[in-house]
């Protein structure tokens, strides 16, 4: 513990030695934080790797390339992509409305945005399944238009979008609030049309946050389970998501296979988050003039 704490503190210490630090409690707070991160994140992840390493390479490859599992990757990826892109659009709109306009009930809507986080995902899943079922409130209307949502991959998209929309709203909202009205006024005084102001002035400040929000929404959707299984129908090769495949393997007491598939989800999520962080760090550094 103490070793990692020192390693983390090293670059800071070059500028200000322990005795010169103004804020107290650096060592203690960093130590507790790292301990906690290890306990709840790193240790379980290590367990995952250890569990998987019980398999031979061939077994591992066989497990993760099972046709039914491969099909679940495809379903999960495209539904998560669809859901997060939808959230990108709708979440941006919602954040925009919440920041830019005053209207009665604004605070209520602002609070409701967090509901998908607060609601148990199983509850969300059951509710959505009921609403979108053939005889549900939405399902009836959609059925007339020939659209089937419940028990199809479209249902997966709906469940994913519902559970991950707060990621987009809550990442975009503070950035929108920070935007200086003077920038927009300057653009308009230079003769820019409303759409040009949005494209050239507002959006460039906004999109790093928007991309982060969409990426968070996407990775969250990759692992979503509770909300999806109630509405997806879970037809093999059609509407099975990867998290369900993990669950199925667990029910068969095949822990190794379950963790092998889980490690794939983990890999995709981590690579995506790292890539976004790197790219965003570069973009923001340029704006800050470093």
């Amino acid at each position: 513990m103490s070793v990692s704490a020192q390693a983390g503190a090293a670059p800071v210490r070059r500028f200000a030695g322990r005795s010169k630090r103004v804020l107290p409690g650096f060592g203690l707070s960093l130590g507790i934080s790292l301990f906690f991160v290890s306990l709840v994140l790193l240790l379980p992840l290590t367990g995952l790797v250890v569990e998987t390493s019980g398999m031979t390479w061939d077994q591992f490859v066989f497990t993760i390339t099972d046709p039914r599992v491969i099909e679940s990757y495809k379903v999960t990826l495209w539904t998560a992509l669809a859901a997060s892109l939808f959230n990108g659009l709708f979440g941006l709109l919602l954040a925009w409305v919440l920041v830019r306009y005053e209207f009665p009930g604004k605070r209520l809507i602002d609070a409701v945005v967090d509901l998908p986080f607060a609601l148990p995902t199983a509850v969300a899943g059951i509710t959505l399944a009921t609403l979108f079922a053939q005889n549900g409130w939405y399902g009836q209307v959609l059925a007339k238009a020939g659209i089937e949502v419940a028990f199809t991959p479209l249902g997966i998209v709906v469940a994913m979008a519902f559970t991950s929309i707060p990621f987009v709203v809550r990442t975009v909202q503070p950035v929108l609030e920070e935007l200086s009205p003077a920038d927009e006024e300057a653009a308009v005084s230079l003769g820019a049309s409303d759409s040009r102001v949005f494209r050239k002035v507002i959006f460039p400040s906004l999109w790093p946050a928007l991309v982060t929000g969409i990426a968070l929404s996407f990775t969250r959707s990759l692992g979503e389970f509770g909300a999806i299984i109630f509405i997806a129908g879970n037809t093999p090769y059609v509407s099975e998501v990867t998290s369900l495949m993990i669950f199925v393997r667990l029910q068969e007491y095949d822990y190794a296979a379950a963790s092998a598939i889980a490690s794939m989800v983990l890999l995709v999520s981590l690579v995506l988050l790292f890539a976004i962080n790197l790219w965003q760090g570069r973009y923001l550094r340029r704006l800050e003039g470093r």
Partner: protein
Amino acid sequence: MSITIDRIKKSFGKFQALNDVSLDIPEGKLTALLGPSGSGKTTLLRIIAGLESSDSGRVLFGGDDVSNLHVRDRNIGFVFQHYALFKHLTVAQNIAFGLESLPRRSRPSKQEINERVAKLLEMIQLPQLADRYPAQLSGGQKQRVALARALATKPRILLLDEPFGALDAKVRKDLRRWLRALHDEFHFTSIFVTHDQEEALELSDQVVVMSQGQVEQVNSPTGLYARPESRFVFDFLGHVNVLSGVVKGQSLVQGNARVALPGVVNNQEAQLYLRPHEVQLAKAPVAHARLPLRIEAISLIGSEVRIELAPEGWESNEIWEVGMSHGEFACHNPTRGELWYAIPAVGHLFAGDSAQPETVDWHSTAHASAANM
């Protein structure tokens, strides 16, 4: 392009920001809107720009009513206090923004835009910074870029909202001079908002003093300083020494202090306003004035020695200030704690409730006594 402001009213909730303001801004001149915060000067500027709409009244550019014209169609350049540069665009892209926003048929070619931008970069003396981002510039450089950006589309009117407010003193002075030179070269009609009286008097051709949503006085800087028309303008422009008292026997009297006021109605309250340069110090009182003061502080910095004095045997809300040349200072060598007498040469009297001052001139007598000193 002259600007006419016709009976503009504007309120924010219960706060009356502008109360029936009418004003003429002459073409090709640099006009300052001067006033304390909350006087409505920025609101007025934003209404002229079209960034804010007035509750009633009209704005005319060269005789044309533009009250209902959108800001983007008013063809104005606007410079913000905090620059408002687009931080994700380079300096050159920032300057080109207005040109690229023009409708397709009037938009110059890419080549022409690049040439215009290069020329503007020359003009603001920053051609080497074309590819930098705003975050890499100093405050003064940012404001120059903002100015170039506002001027790129050749606006008929340039509006500046506290353009030097966020800069430090040295840069502010440089930029002020530079803006004046630029204005003299291009002669656009410009209005700038400031709360800094020195800036307003130094930079502008015409100063509009505002207070509480109204125009107090409009005049050239010299005219304004020499002939303030109200107590507010007096107080706001530079330091002023005040003697308030009662007129008795043709003199303004308070405690130990007495100043002769020939021809003024007796038995009324009055205030005498004296600029630091309108007062001299002497070792003894003179026939027309007896204003005993004790020296509190002496400041030698600047082209003039500034002496701060406290009334002796009478009262004043604020400390008195008298200027003295370094030559005079060396000759008389006043020191802290000494008792001196202020000898006014010219004064401005507000008698009774009158809002307008009356100039009192003791010049001939004062001259004689100063020579005796």
